[in-house]
């Protein structure tokens, strides 16, 4: 089961943060079909947030077809977001680690690496569109 956390300074609405965390968990395979999400009451008590906020996040995820509520039992994962590509994560991560090593040896600091990655990512996606 995943555990939610809230960043009060992020400026992102709490229910959106919960949704992001479930989607993130699905992408990385931390959450799989059939897994139960934490009970509304437990999330409310754990994070000191309004239960309606949790319900709203779960309803939104249900609308997206990612989870389903079984009344009286809980909310369960019914969809995936990895697109069946989870197996490819391992080699891709290894390539990325090698690339990061090269970037560091070339003298790039964290911010430069991030900026280079994001700008390359953006221009690549723009080429895809064009």
């Amino acid at each position, binding site marked *: 089961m995943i555990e939610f956390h*809230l960043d*009060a300074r992020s*400026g992102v*609405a*709490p229910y959106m943060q919960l949704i992001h965390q479930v989607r993130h968990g699905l992408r990385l395979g931390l959450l799989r079909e059939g897994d139960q999400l934490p009970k*509304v*009451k437990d999330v*409310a*008590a*754990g*994070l*000191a*947030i*309004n*239960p*309606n*906020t*949790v319900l709203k996040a779960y309803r939104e995820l249900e609308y997206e077809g990612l989870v389903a509520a079984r009344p009286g039992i809980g909310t369960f994962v019914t969809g995936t977001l990895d697109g069946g590509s989870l197996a490819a994560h391992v080699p891709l991560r290894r390539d990325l680690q090698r690339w990061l090593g090269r970037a560091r040896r070339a003298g790039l600091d964290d911010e430069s690496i991030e900026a280079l990655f994001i700008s390359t990512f953006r221009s690549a996606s723009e080429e895809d569109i064009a």
Partner: protein
Amino acid sequence: MTAVIETAGLGKRYRTLWALADCTVSIPAGHVVGLVGPNGAGKTTLLDLATGMLAPTTGAITVLGGRPAAGPAQLARVGYLSQDAPLYTGLSVADHLKLGARLNPGWNADQARDRVRRLDLDPRRKAGTLSGGQRAQLALTLAIAKRPELLILDEPVASLDPLARREFLQDLMETVGEHQVSVVMSSHLISDLERICDYVIVLVDSRVRVAGPVDELLATHHLLSGPRRDPASLPDGVEVISASHTDVQTTLLVRTSGRVLDPAWMVSELGLEDLVLAYMKQAGASRNRHLEVQK
């Protein structure tokens, strides 16, 4: 759903001073309502009118469809916790639970005992020897165990340290999740309210400035910035809450149900805290300073 608190033209005057004036609100059930405003705005007065501790000077108020404190049945439906977490300092924790059981027909003794155990409170301890956090938790226990439909909390966490505050709010949210109780609480701590409330009432200078579901308020308020111009040039249906100008730039906080389409404006979203503060500041501009009225 029915209203938990409904007021029409409600006012309370102390001699010449209006602690609350012309207050008309309808608070729907099933919410955790945050009542915010500066000191002396009338928050405590409104809550005291809702519990029946005060009688209105003008207007009317109904709570859960009945008159506040009209009789034992009405009293049993409302739980109330005042600013100072009132307990009998000479009585032990166990005595408080016994008293709760005697005074409240719907008392849930198991729940009260469970909570005291979970809070690690020694039943033999006198209430006067408990820490501020423990006192607040014990007072909340008493208010919850009577199984009210509406819980009214006046600045419940103001005097608590951050850890005690978080624990108090965790327990409160757990109760809301478990028992579907409606909550109306006043607080200065907007950051806490942001996590907890899904309905907000801003009270300034004894008047309600804005009230509504948090989602709706956030969706209808926008921050506009752009080249300097007269706010009066905005289209109909756009209400300016606050405006500031430099020699080249204008920044407006507006309320509108539609979208702002004028490309001259850069539109950004704003958080609950900014929204509440803007309403407080708006009122502050035309403000007569009041003294905090204590009962």
